[in-house]
């Protein structure tokens, strides 16, 4: 009968087409810049990355996780068996039965996909993605029926012409969507690109429970600095963009999107896909950038991205909070891409918006973003009698003061922390006027030249002295010192003050009174939480103060940014709301009277919300207020230090 010869032809045609598509797609990626990845090791590690690491992220949504396991697992298995049974015609009842089972599995999964698509949330893309569940159903059902004869359940020539024709249509549809659609740019592209993306990921450290959040340095001798055209991305970044499943998890978490600023991380990744393949966004079937109409963005591999494809305002809206990256099931790196493009705008175009240019100029001329006299870094501590590294040369703890030294509000936090350090009798010292801005803001604003210059000079100073660890109250400096100085030769043990104070409390070197006051909630700073995985120490400390936290809905790794990261307050792209106001709403929603934070930038942002609002206090302030000074334990510790 006709199916006997047509089916293998169809399957092999689909496979050949898929191969051709794959070659074409791979060539698109290869237009990107070289990057050193271990191809073999990556491929070997891929199944584990897929089954464990990726699944770990997907599992946050149980429904989708089970659905995906059934559908994808069913499909991969079915496809293998289809090749054996229907292409090579292996006559084995066992194989046929196995194929039946796998297509049932896939069908069941597809039914759930279908149900999710009945009333999809706005974050999901529509368009071809609405077709996908139907294709899945069609594919699995058709092959199920086709395999029945091979399994010996039905006679070889049941049904006759009509059914055969219907089945043929089903097979053709299914194969085109699921097999060569995979490499020709349909929704199933995510499976093909996704698998390879996992294998050749630019940050392999992220797998196996690791963390990699530091930005990569720019080669300042390069032909262009930063990314001008899609082909200026590394090839595996391009591959990564192609892996996007348009699930919109990133969109749902993005603070800039929620504030109505013209940024949507999902759309941005799709725009990158348009860039690498060429075309326009007319067919994009998800939420646009707030306030930007669809259909006007056009791009191609060799075209400047910010001229026609992505408006610079989109890039400057990002707070680099990494909520999107944290949430992305495909482990795509949005922040890297955004900063890469900012680098071009700043270092090649000289187009950092609003106060950006001024801040960068100040950083270059005075080593601090507001252009204060660099010789006035220690003015805040005139009455504190702090030991200077240049005098003592050696200390257990180097207290990295950060630019908070110039800001009156932040100085309260710094003083509180100094009080805690002294109460615990810690042997510490500061760099004083030798300290410079950490480079965080310069780097996020795309000025890697200034970042590197600041970092190198800071490293040179740090290397003059001996200390065991660096402690800082600024999560941004913390992150940069800990994760980004390494590339330039500075390797240090760096702690955030909450971690350090918590340690002191655990060691019994601080005696704390219980906190008296109303409901308290805790706001996780992005650069402490998502960037460095420190969620527990602040909470432990608050507990030690006798505080029972009223956790906000968005907390921990799902904490929402205060709006202060990535230079966003400097570039200040207008939206409909302010991110800090939205965050304050979260706090009000749990009835908080006090928001505990661990970051001076968060303090500034949240205190910028118009009163009446909950109070804002850094954990260092809460601890210093609760200190029982002269308590026996603390005194003992001091004595010990003095003696030793």
């Amino acid at each position, binding site marked *: 009968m006709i199916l006997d010869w047509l089916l293998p032809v169809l399957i092999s045609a689909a496979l050949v087409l898929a191969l051709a598509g794959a070659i074409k797609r791979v060539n698109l990626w290869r237009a990107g810049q070289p990057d050193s990845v271990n191809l073999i090791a990556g491929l070997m590690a891929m199944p584990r990355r897929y089954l464990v690491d990726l699944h770990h992220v997907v599992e946050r949504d149980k429904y989708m996780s089970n659905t995906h396991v059934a559908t994808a697992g069913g499909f991969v298995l079915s496809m293998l068996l289809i090749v054996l049974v229907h292409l090579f015609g292996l006559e084995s009842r066992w194989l046929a039965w196995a194929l039946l089972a796998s297509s049932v599995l896939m069908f069941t999964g597809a039914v759930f996909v279908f149900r999710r698509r009945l009333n999809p949330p706005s974050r999901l893309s529509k368009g071809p993605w609405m077709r996908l569940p139907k294709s899945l159903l069609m594919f699995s059902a058709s092959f199920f029926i086709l395999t029945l004869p091979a399994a010996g359940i039905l006679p070889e020539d049941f049904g006759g012409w009509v059914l055969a024709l219907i089945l043929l249509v089903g097979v053709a549809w299914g194969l085109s969507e699921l097999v060569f659609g995979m490499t020709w740019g349909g929704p199933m592209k995510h499976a093909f690109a996704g698998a390879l993306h996992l294998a050749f990921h630019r940050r392999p450290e992220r797998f196996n429970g690791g963390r990699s959040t530091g930005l990569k340095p720019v080669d*300042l001798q390069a032909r*262009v*600095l930063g990314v001008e055209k899609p082909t200026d991305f590394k090839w595996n970044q391009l591959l990564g963009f192609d892996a996007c499943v348009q699930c919109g998890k990133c969109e749902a978490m993005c603070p800039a999107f929620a504030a109505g600023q013209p940024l949507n991380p999902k759309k941005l990744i799709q725009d990158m896909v348009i860039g690498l393949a060429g075309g326009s966004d007319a067919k994009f079937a998800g939420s646009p950038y707030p306030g930007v109409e669809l259909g006007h963005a056009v791009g191609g591999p060799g075209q400047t991205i910010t001229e026609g494809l992505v408006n610079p305002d989109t890039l400057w809206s990002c707070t680099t909070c990494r909520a999107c990256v944290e949430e992305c099931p495909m482990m795509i790196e949005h922040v890297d891409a955004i900063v890469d493009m900012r680098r071009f705008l*700043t*270092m*090649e*175009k*000289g*187009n*950092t918006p609003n106060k*950006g*240019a001024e801040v*960068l*100029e100040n950083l*270059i*001329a*005075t*080593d601090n973003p507001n*252009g*204060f*006299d*660099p*010789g006035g870094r220690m003015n805040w501590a005139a009455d504190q009698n702090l030991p200077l590294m240049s005098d003592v040369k050696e200390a257990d703890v180097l207290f990295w003061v950060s630019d908070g030294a110039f800001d009156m509000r932040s100085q309260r936090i710094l003083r509180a922390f100094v009080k805690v350090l002294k109460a615990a009798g810690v042997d510490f010292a500061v760099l004083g006027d030798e300290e410079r801005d950490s480079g965080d803001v310069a780097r996020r604003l795309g*000025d890697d*030249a*200034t970042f590197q210059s600041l970092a190198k000079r800071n490293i040179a100073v740090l290397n003059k002295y001996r200390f065991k660890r660096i402690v800082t109250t600024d999560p941004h400096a913390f992150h940069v010192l800990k994760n980004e100085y390494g590339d330039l030769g500075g390797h240090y043990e760096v702690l955030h003050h909450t971690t350090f104070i918590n340690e002191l409390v655990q060691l019994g070197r601080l005696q704390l009174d219980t906190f008296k006051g109303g409901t308290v909630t805790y706001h996780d700073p992005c650069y402490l939480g998502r960037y460095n995985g420190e969620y527990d120490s602040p909470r432990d400390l608050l507990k030690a103060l006798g505080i029972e936290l009223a956790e906000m809905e968005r907390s921990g790794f799902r904490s929402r940014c205060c709006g202060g990261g990535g230079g966003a307050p400097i570039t200040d792209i207008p939206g409909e709301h302010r991110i800090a106001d939205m965050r304050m709403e979260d706090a009000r929603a749990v009835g908080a009277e006090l928001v505990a934070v661990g970051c001076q930038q968060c303090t500034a942002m949240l205190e910028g919300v118009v009163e009446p609002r909950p109070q804002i206090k850094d954990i260092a302030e809460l601890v210093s207020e609760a200190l029982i000074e002269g308590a026996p334990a603390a005194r003992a510790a001091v004595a010990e230090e003095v003696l030793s």
Partner: protein
Amino acid sequence: MTSDLNIVALVSIGQHPKSGRARRAEQDARAVELGMRLAGDNVQVLHAGDAAEETLRQYAGMGLKSLRVLQQSPQADAVVALGDYLAEHRADVVLTGVRAESGESSGMAPYLLAEKLGWPLVTRIADIVSIENGEAQILQALPRGQRRAIQVRLPFVASVDMAAQVARQSAFGPGRRAELESLPWVETPDSERAQFKEAPARKRPKRLKKVKATTAAERFKAATAKSQGTGGRIIKDQPPTEQAQAIFDLLLEEGVLR
């Protein structure tokens, strides 16, 4: 605007007022900005000094392909070199800052150049509105945001005020790639400056309001009035008429009502 104009912007090495670090001088950068808006990257940027000075790249980073440097040692009189160069290479418009940020910072450069070239000099300009038929329409900056319209024939020298459009951002990439064209140039030593002694600025005592007090009460008041200034006066629980009057008095006293 006519882009076949020959516009020269003179730049110096600036100095940050707080850190004392070398930087592009704010007014000179505004001069370059104005030049670029008039003539695109045809504007010629000229410096007399050392081509190895990295700070020059901050000007180049504004988008200049090249920058011409008349090679001079620090002891040389840069104005002489610039004047000789400009006398040889005819320009239509020469733009400078009002006052340098480092060195003698006397602000004499534009005057000396104009005198030497025999060209008119327009000081403290905020903008060049147009250049047509060999005549420029200029806005001169007056104190407190006021402007004066001025007409002058080419060629002329103009010093650019802080009221002019702020200079565009300097980008690292183009700055690094720009060519610093070094021209060996005759040096005239500045012997007079060699006699100057320079030291960090001393704080100048603010002049106290001299009160020729005749009574003890007046002296007492003169002494207490100072400390009162730091606290600030608060008018509470008074009718709004009185409050408004107090504000109005202050406005009158400060002379901002006109």
